């Protein structure tokens, strides 16, 4: 009989004995499930955060900052500069004009609904072109603000996370009252964490005179980027840096994303170590309780390597069961769970939903498989190395 059939047969016997070792097997499965759930759960925070930061960005949209500025907070542009930028080649035009918006960005304090503690919430002044630049933006309740009025529209994420942002409520910031006239969505993107108003109203309220911080624009195509950038970076009237929004937001989310991912990986590694010992213990016990059985098979003429594989496969089956349960648990518990956290690069809160993506589930399963592989390897080698004559004498 060929080797593969021996593997199948020996593994079949091993898996049939799993039920007779329910307790230890269940402990291993649950241990691995816990590790995978935590890994996937924590990484889904980073994934969700990054998605919120990058989902709205398209390859044809760009952001223009003052040269040397790394974020909107640190940038500043004059009215004249924003006009030069708006006239640069490659800017797309929509139904309501050029897809370009000069914007300013301030941070206001609002209490979190969950804890009541104050948090930094971005209040963005935009021009009419903002809706041509971010075409995924949709008013889902109420209406858009009217230019020249102290009216705001609120991102759906911010409306959920922060108190006082319900439709029809008046928001008092500094000396000014702002009426919430609409709630908008942006496919879960960063804009949903913000409050928007007319830039022309926000400038005097914050004594910004006629200055802005940033220009957002949509180009006719992603390929138009180089010409647009070259035109601006070689124009002596402006001193700016031009970035694709995809690159800008990826960079803006990197600190928090890396921190969450690093922390998640560290926690999962430590827990994984515990689960690994659990799996090792279970498989050593399994091998030990089947020592005579394995020895009998080998005495009858079954080779050692199918025994190694059968132990490995048994361990992997337990690991995949645990991985599957952990992944499913993480998906149902965390996917779509809404939260807000500080983005250290903009010093403002970002509302986002945890994202348990297929790649994260795959990562969880691979982690479980790794635990199963290592957890099964040493017991398998022990099972194969124990001399038959010695193993036959074990009870």
């Amino acid at each position: 009989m060929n080797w593969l059939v021996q593997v199948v047969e020996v593994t079949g016997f091993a898996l049939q004995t799993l039920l007779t070792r329910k307790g230890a097997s269940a402990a291993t499965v649950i241990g691995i499930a816990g590790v995978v759930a935590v890994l996937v759960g924590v990484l889904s925070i980073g994934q969700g955060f990054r998605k919120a930061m990058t989902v709205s960005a398209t390859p044809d949209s760009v952001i223009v900052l003052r040269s040397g500025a790394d974020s909107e907070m640190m940038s500043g542009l004059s009215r004249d500069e924003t006009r030069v930028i708006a006239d640069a080649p490659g800017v797309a035009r929509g139904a309501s004009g050029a897809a370009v918006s000069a914007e300013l960005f301030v941070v206001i304090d609002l209490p979190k609904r969950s804890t009541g503690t104050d948090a930094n919430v971005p209040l963005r002044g935009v021009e009419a072109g903002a809706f041509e630049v971010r075409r995924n933006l949709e008013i889902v309740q109420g209406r858009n603000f009217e230019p020249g009025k102290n009216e705001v529209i609120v991102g759906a994420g911010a409306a959920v996370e922060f108190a006082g942002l319900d439709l029809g409520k008046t928001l008092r910031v500094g000396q000014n009252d702002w009426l919430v006239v609409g709630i908008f969505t942006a496919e879960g993107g960063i804009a949903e964490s913000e409050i928007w108003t007319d830039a022309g109203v926000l400038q005097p309220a914050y004594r910004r005179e006629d200055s802005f911080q940033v220009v957002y624009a949509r180009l006719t195509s992603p390929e138009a980027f180089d010409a647009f950038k070259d035109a601006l970076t070689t124009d002596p009237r402006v001193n700016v840096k031009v970035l694709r929004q995809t690159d800008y937001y990826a960079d803006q989310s990197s600190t928090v994303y890396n921190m969450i991912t690093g922390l998640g990986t560290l926690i999962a590694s430590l827990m994984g170590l515990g689960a690994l010992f659990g799996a090792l213990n279970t498989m050593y016990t399994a091998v030990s309780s089947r020592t005579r059985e394995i020895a009998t098979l080998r005495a009858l003429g079954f080779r050692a390597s199918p025994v190694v594989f059968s132990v490995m496969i048994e361990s992997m089956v337990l690991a995949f069961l645990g991985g599957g349960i952990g992944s499913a648990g993480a998906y149902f518990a965390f996917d779509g769970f809404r939260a807000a956290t500080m983005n250290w690069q903009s010093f403002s809160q970002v509302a986002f939903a945890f994202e348990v993506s297929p790649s994260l589930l795959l990562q969880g399963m691979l982690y479980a498989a790794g635990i199963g592989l290592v957890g099964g390897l040493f017991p398998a080698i022990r099972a194969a190395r124990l001399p038959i004559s010695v193993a036959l004498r074990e009870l």
Partner: protein
Amino acid sequence: MSNDVLVHVRNVEKRFRRGSEDIHVLSGLSLEVPRGEFLALMGPSGSGKTTLLNLIGGLDRPTGGSVEIEGERIDGFSDRKLAAWRARHVGLVFQMYNLLPVLTAERNVDLPLLLTHLSRQERRRHVEAALAVVGLSHRARHFPRQMSGGEQQRVGIARAIVTDPTLLLCDEPTGDLDRKAGDEILDLLQVLNREQGKTIVMVTHDPHASARASRTVHLNKGQLSTEAVP
């Protein structure tokens, strides 16, 4: 060498190392077993009976000397070759039956046949025949836990003979059975020896069991002894 000699053990030594100490289990032992013989190996605990049986069955290798079965030296075989040789030439009967508890009697008996190239139907025929020989056709679908010790041992014997091996090696086959069940097993072994011509080497403590063999040899401190040792 006479053609009638099936098992030829020449001057074998077997040492085990325990810590820094060498333990000599077999010392220069030689033994011949003619084809068709029913040989009983007797001796006190630790005399080396089971070790000798394991060497003859290719479950272990001697530290020195040679083991020849049907003219073939098996002590130099690789693990892989030895496993294949055991599957083809040796039937093993254990004191504790060593049945797989998750398999029915017929699937336990089928185990050695999985190592052959027989078709499923051919295997089934062999299994039915082996179970008929041991008188357990009606228990084919039963699990070991549903059978008495004597019945389990008969399944063990069916598993040992299902491939029609050259040599049947039994390690205390009645050691875990009451007298009546033990007698039935010994009857069965005698039938296999006399009617099917099986060469049997049986390790036993029990003079009652060894009395059924055609010859008895005694081991003491790793060597053959002419006298029974209490």
